[in-house]
């Protein structure tokens, strides 16, 4: 890439686990509350942004072009364009990549990019049969006709809505639930329930430890003075404060994990609700700037995005997307897995992360699928998802890609490390990856 792309700052909402019924915030509420706090701590005004790009996999029907909607709600003013991107689970990462492209081309200097989803508010839809019944009713004129038509209504049509969320989490081409694609990986690489559950318990433990260390807060621990808090607490209209990712469990244990039944391949599978990422509501933003914008506003960037990559693979194996996206980046830069200081690999499923590790260690897979001469290696567990992942924190689909980019920069900064990769699997058979670097201490940006 020719121009340097800086990440100036970023913020996200706590990820709120979907409870019974719609959550307290709509997607645009989440993006607005996180975004306004992020913009408030900048030296420039919201109207100084060149554009706002928001990734969202499932905006509600009254959130058409949610990117523009949120830009206006953030007080950016009528002149700042806002738009929406959709690359399913990587919508937030796509927003960042679209911002990069526009900064590279010189169209923009300063961009707010991120992702959001409020999965708890995914709609229930009428079935096709019901829609046809309504359409039929609309075309009738006389009362008698209408009565006759009314009698054709079957309660089953009315009472069995299509669950929008399940549609969203089903591959539209091969028809598999995302969890079933994870079962595919487990089957292929021989990953068992025990391994999945162990991984999941550790994800919770790590997330909890990071919270206790204050890694998500402003002005705490490593963030003192820097004002780089990752999580912006939410406040609803009843004055209730939502300050933390509420799916993280202090009581996560193997015994607890063992109680759950397989959800996707009922009875016989291994993937359960507990070793999958949680259905959550949340938003995450990063602020991207060109060199000129950094200088103009005297910004102190968190780091830079050096490269990005999108790759495709079989939809049935979509969980291996990170392997397919990260490998070319590493090759382009002459790096191996061990040259990366820290990794954020979004945990769609425990089996999915374990599957990625297995694929890189599988000679046949490396040769046949990745075009490598042999086994590529393994990511050191101590450098992978060090503060937990989506299994513990949750996976508000559109937001996750932006969350892992933002969080990885915090991890690198905190550990005085240099290089990291944030990578994500994408329903439909895609992978996305971004290579990040921190700024050198002395005036790299300035």
């Amino acid at each position, binding site marked *: 890439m020719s121009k340097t792309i800086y990440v100036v700052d970023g913020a996200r909402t706590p990820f709120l686990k979907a409870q019974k019924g719609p959550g307290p915030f709509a997607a645009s509420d989440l993006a607005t509350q996180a975004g*306004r706090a992020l913009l*408030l701590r900048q*030296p420039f005004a919201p109207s100084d942004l060149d554009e706002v790009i928001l990734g969202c996999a499932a905006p509600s029907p009254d959130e058409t072009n949610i990117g523009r909607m949120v830009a206006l709600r953030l007080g950016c003013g009528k002149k700042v364009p806002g738009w929406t991107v959709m690359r399913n689970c990587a919508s937030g990462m796509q927003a960042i990549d679209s911002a990069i492209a526009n900064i590279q081309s010189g169209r923009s200097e300063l961009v707010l990019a991120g992702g959001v989803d409020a999965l708890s508010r995914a709609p229930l839809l009428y079935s096709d049969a019901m829609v046809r019944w309504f359409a039929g009713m609309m075309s009738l004129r006389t009362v008698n006709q209408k009565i006759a038509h009314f009698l054709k209504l079957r309660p089953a049509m009315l009472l069995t809505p299509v669950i929008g969320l399940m549609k969203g989490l089903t591959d539209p081409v091969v028809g598999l639930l995302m969890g079933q694609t994870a079962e595919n990986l487990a089957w292929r690489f021989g990953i068992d329930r025990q391994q999945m559950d162990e991984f999941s318990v550790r994800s919770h433990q790590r997330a909890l430890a990071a919270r206790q260390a204050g890694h998500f807060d402003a002005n705490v621990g490593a963030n003192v003075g820097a004002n780089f808090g990752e999580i912006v607490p939410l406040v609803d209209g009843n004055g*209730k*404060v939502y300050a933390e990712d509420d799916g993280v469990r202090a009581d996560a244990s193997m015994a607890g994990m063992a109680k759950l039944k397989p959800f996707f391949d009922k009875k016989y599978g291994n993937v359960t609700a507990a070793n999958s990422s949680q259905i959550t509501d949340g938003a995450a933003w990063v602020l991207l700037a060109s060199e000129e914008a950094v200088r103009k506003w005297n910004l102190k960037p968190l780091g830079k995005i050096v490269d990005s990559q999108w790759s495709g693979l079989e939809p049935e194996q979509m969980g291996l997307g990170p392997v397919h996206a990260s490998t070319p980046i590493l090759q382009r830069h002459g790096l191996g897995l061990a040259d990366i200081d820290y990794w954020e690999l979004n945990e769609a499923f425990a089996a999915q992360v374990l599957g990625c590790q297995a694929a890189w260690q599988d000679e046949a897979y490396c040769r046949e699928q990745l075009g490598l001469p042999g086994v590529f290696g393994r990511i050191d567990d101590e450098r992978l998802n060090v503060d937990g992942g989506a299994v513990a924190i949750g996976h508000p689909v559109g937001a996750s890609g932006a969350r892992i980019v933002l969080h990885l920069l915090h991890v690198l900064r905190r550990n005085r490390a240099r290089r990291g990769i944030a990578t994500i699997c994408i329903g439909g058979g895609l992978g996305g990856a971004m290579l990040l670097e921190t700024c050198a201490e002395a005036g790299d940006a300035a």
Partner: protein
Amino acid sequence: MQRDAVMEQLTGAKMKHWQLIKENSGIAVAVLDKAEESANSLSAEVLAEFGQILDQLDVYPPKGLIVRSGKAAGFIAGADIGEFSQLDTQEKGRALVDRGWTLFNRLAAVKYPTLALVRGHCLGGGLELALACRYLLAVDESGTKMGLPEVMLGIFPGWGGMLRLPERVGPSAALDMMLTGRTVDGKKAKKLGLADDCVPPRVMEMAARQLLLSGQPRRPLPLMQRLLNGPLKAVVANGARKQVAKKARPEHYPAPYAIIDLWAKHNGNALAAPEVVDRIISSPTARNLVRVFHLQERLKGFGKDANFRAKHVHVIGAGVMGGDIAAWCALRGLTVTLQDQTVERIAPAIARASKLFNRRLRDPLKARLAFDRLIPDPQGEGVRHADVVIEAIFENVEAKHALFRSLEPKLKPGAVLATNTSSLRLEDLRVALQQPERLVGIHFFNPVAMMPLVEVVEAEGCNAGAVQAACAFVKQIDKLPLPVKSAPGFLVNAVLAPYMLAAMRAVDEGLTPETVDEAMLAFGMPMGPIELVDTVGLDIAMAAGKQLAGGAEPPKCLLARVEKNQLGKKTGQGFYDWSSGRAKKGAPGAVPAGLSEKLAKPLVDRVHRLVANGVVADADLADAGVIFGTGFAPFTGGPLHRGKG
């Protein structure tokens, strides 16, 4: 041809305020654009010219007539209040009523269809004119407000409002509007049947012409409403009198009772009861309420000339005052950052704000935008973006010093730095600043959303531009700025303290709180002084007493309750039991003769002293401040004006 020539000649006739446009379609449009005024009002001259227009249209009747405003700001604000103050004889009063009554009856009787295109405020005489048209078309905008607020000036809607509004919307809704002065927006007006339609501005021109020529009959009142406006009038009137009696005593406020009588007995024709006209128009209440109106206009004038407009307000301290100030500013369209130590401390203020937005804005999209504008800001990031910074933390000099020291380097140049302190001296607070002259007081009253007055406090040597900007800001958020000099209690608290003290002494002397309160309610206060102490909080009253009573012993009744931690409404028990959320009062005893004067005297004396000391610039402003800051009986014209009579 000849007809056009005559029309041209007629319309060419010199008119100062109106323009009559004849469209090719045969529709005539009368546009009111009152000369040398920013808003339209119905002066004698304006009405006379409208009479000329009707004359012209009698000669060659148009296909229809549209009446509209040529002002950006509103349709018609009402009668010309300046003229009202000049009614020194009974004849003049009756002539004023007759002028509009007759003209609007004439308008109502013309053969061609007529339509009032109402965009913006349409009040008093303006609405009476619109009611006399066959159709009323409201434009759906936030500024569109229709009402008959005459009662607030102590008079009645004598130009046909009392006749036509009940015919249009039924007597219950009409009496509610006429007796409270409450206004309705376009949508509500349509729902009530007051407006025939309510349309967005983009189609108002087409809608006006279509509706005008539609021949569409008026929607008839439902049968029940017709009965209530006919044979059952007396029943409705009795009910209305009882309702009014709960709010206003006839000896203080005769107008609402007159409105009920004129509607019930004379079908809204005030000229049928000239003695009522004489009595009301010459009543001191009417004169004093008009005076209060003018005082209000004078307060609105402060800060008018300052070239200052705030976009972002930063409030520090999310307690009751700070939180409610922040919410009010967000409601009024400003971006607001609200700072306190933690988000948890800010959250209750956000909850109150959310309720306020939903109640006041109704439209959920507008309420959501207001909610978005109010940003919890525990880190104080908003300071460097803010045009106005208001400190509303607890009353402690050292804490405020520390805060000011940390704030000052972050302030934008030209930003207003203000304190909402009510008990500390600005002179003591500003010593922490590099530029002490920039600190002003912007003193709100509780509850912020209800209290119209805000004291803008100037200490000796204060930057005049800062004071002006503070006044402009207060005006911008639709409050009434009252400039006062820095002195303990400023104006409002300084006059309330000796008044509440006197009331509590009366309790010490053996009167029940109910009796003391009744004395002042009969005097015309909106709330009794003992209930006021309960509302303010007994601890606050104690502290204020120490500061403002010049070292006098606190009343025993106050001490005893404070010792038992019975602090008033907030603890559920003070002088009264507040466990139900309202003061539980027993029946008052017999009020001793002269009690109310005895209790009011310390207040009035204090106002005199504050004017003499220059805390407030003149007696009129003092009256204005005490009326809008304490609710002091408006019908008296204010504590000092009352003494003059």
